[in-house]
């Protein structure tokens, strides 16, 4: 449905998109992932014929964006980062206007407006001014606008940006519901969104495509063997981290123990298991039986977040999503 080859977009001084190539199959939901300023919006704008590429080709729904922009535009629905709504219009009036712009008319348009309004849960505000709507409603009106003419391809630029958690969930549900009928390319910098909604991920950084794979494969790539983070505290006086390390290494199924840090008599280790071995239970038991406190035990397996950071090479700017913390305080003996 979407074929992009060697796509490049240069501005006066910067290269926003640098020779990216990818393909999206019919009916797929593809997540377009990258930090802010990575070139996601630029790529989407090229695909929607808003910007011409400096180099390379993009083929959407069977037509080239440069040679046949009119045909491409008929077959795409686009939700830009800020929903392109007119505050002085009523919801129904607006959707009708967009429908006409996309070449619909008459009764079929009226029916479609009603249908889309219900599907995007904006039917209850259809005679309100868009300017008076909350951000969440406005976003949904934007989404309704994008699907009004039942396009083959939907391009959504950060569809959940600025929504509250409940609205985010509703919007994701809605997008998932749209898959199948439409081929969807959605951009985001929020990882769980991709994990939840998409089948395929394209990771882009500084204008370059750094990875493209299915969500499932990407996660597996990182989760071959289990990796556990443990923090151990000595109970009476100081405890030599080497002693702990030695003890942990003797547990069966452990392939490697990496000493991380020590402070205030607490030492942290990353323990890796052999492939397909579960070691957490043994690990906890070993620590407690040795008479130490087990302060923390959590999965250090790479989330998509870490894969993403690894691939894009950016520093962990925000705290990673709280990992499962199995804190087992050592019992008093």
């Amino acid at each position, binding site marked *: 449905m979407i074929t992009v080859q060697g796509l490049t977009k240069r501005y006066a001084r910067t290269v926003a998109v640098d020779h990216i190539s990818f393909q999206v199959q019919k009916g797929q939901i593809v997540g377009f992932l990258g930090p802010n300023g990575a070139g996601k919006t630029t790529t989407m704008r090229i695909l929607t*014929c808003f910007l011409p590429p400096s180099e390379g080709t993009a083929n959407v729904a069977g037509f080239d964006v440069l040679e046949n922009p009119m045909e491409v*535009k008929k077959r795409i629905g686009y939700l830009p*980062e*800020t929903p392109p*709504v*007119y505050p002085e219009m009523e919801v129904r009036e607006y959707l009708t206007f*967009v429908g006409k*712009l*996309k070449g619909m008319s008459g009764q079929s348009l009226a029916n479609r407006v009603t249908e889309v309004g219900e599907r995007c849960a904006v039917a209850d505000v259809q005679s309100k001014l868009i300017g008076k709507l909350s951000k969440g409603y406005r976003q949904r009106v934007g989404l309704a*606008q994008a699907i009004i003419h039942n396009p083959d391809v939907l391009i959504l630029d950060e569809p959940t940006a600025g929504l509250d958690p409940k609205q985010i969930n509703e919007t994701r549900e809605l997008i998932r519901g749209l898959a199948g009928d439409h081929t969807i390319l959605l951009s985001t910098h929020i990882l769980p969104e991709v994990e939840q909604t998409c089948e395929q991920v394209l990771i882009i950084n500084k204008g370059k495509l750094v990875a493209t794979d299915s969500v499932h494969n990407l996660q597996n790539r990182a989760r071959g063997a289990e990796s556990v983070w443990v923090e151990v505290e000595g109970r009476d006086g100081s405890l030599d981290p080497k002693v702990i390390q030695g003890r942990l290494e003797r547990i069966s199924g452990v392939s490697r123990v990496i000493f991380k840090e020590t402070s205030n008599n607490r030492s942290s280790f990353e323990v890796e298991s052999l492939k397909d071995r579960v070691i957490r239970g043994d690990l906890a038991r070993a620590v407690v039986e040795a008479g130490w406190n087990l302060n923390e035990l959590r999965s250090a397996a790479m989330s998509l977040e870490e894969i993403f950071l690894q691939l894009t090479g950016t520093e962990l700017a925000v705290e990673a999503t709280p990992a499962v913390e199995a804190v087992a305080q050592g019992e008093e003996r």
Partner: protein
Amino acid sequence: MRNVWIICQKELNSYFTSPVAYLLLTMFALIFGFFFWNSVGYFNMMGLESQMRGQAFPMSVNEYVIRPLLSNVSVIGLFFIPMITMRLFAEEKRMGTIELLATSPVRDMEIIIGKWLAALILYAVMMLFTAINFAFLFRYGNPDWKPLAIGYLGLLLQAGGLLAVGTFISTLTKNQIIAGAATFGVCLMLWVLEWVAGYETATWAKVLAYFSVISHFESFAKGVVDTKDAVYYLSLIFLGLFLTSRSMESLRWRT
């Protein structure tokens, strides 16, 4: 053509759902009403005077009332045109709705003409208010309607040209105030250019004066369609719309 009308309708709706259209129409009606009242009052006084002197020569309503008033309207229009055009594209750019228009299966030129047409229609509605005043002249006097009709044609042509220039300026910025102020400046310059012809007879002054929108209106005010003047206005319309389409095109390369 259908798309032009869709865009035009949408623009007219947004003029008339916001206070913009009503404010402009009210202001214009008041200002023009004042001009009309003055003009008719002056005409009456002149009529009385000539009667008292006993030299009852025929005074033409067309020549003494309609013609100067039409010229006044063409100048008043200069002040209103920036307010009509300033939002056309600046607002779309600021709201991001330009992305919707530019990614819909609609040609740039259809968007531009639709918007320009809506502006022209709003201007024409303004002109309707002058017609209410002129109607009194027809009720109580006996003016010739043909020069008036030609005067209106001239006003629409002139406004068409300036509105096209205003539309172009509106594509250059996201800020309505800037678009409005710049359009106003250009309109004003196009008005006062003819002043140089008052004291200078060199070729450059003639060329400069030729570019003045007002000087081309004189023939229309007299009730004469001069091809030269009509061509000037039509060229201005084409130039304005052409520049707008170039500017929209460049928007795609710059954004």
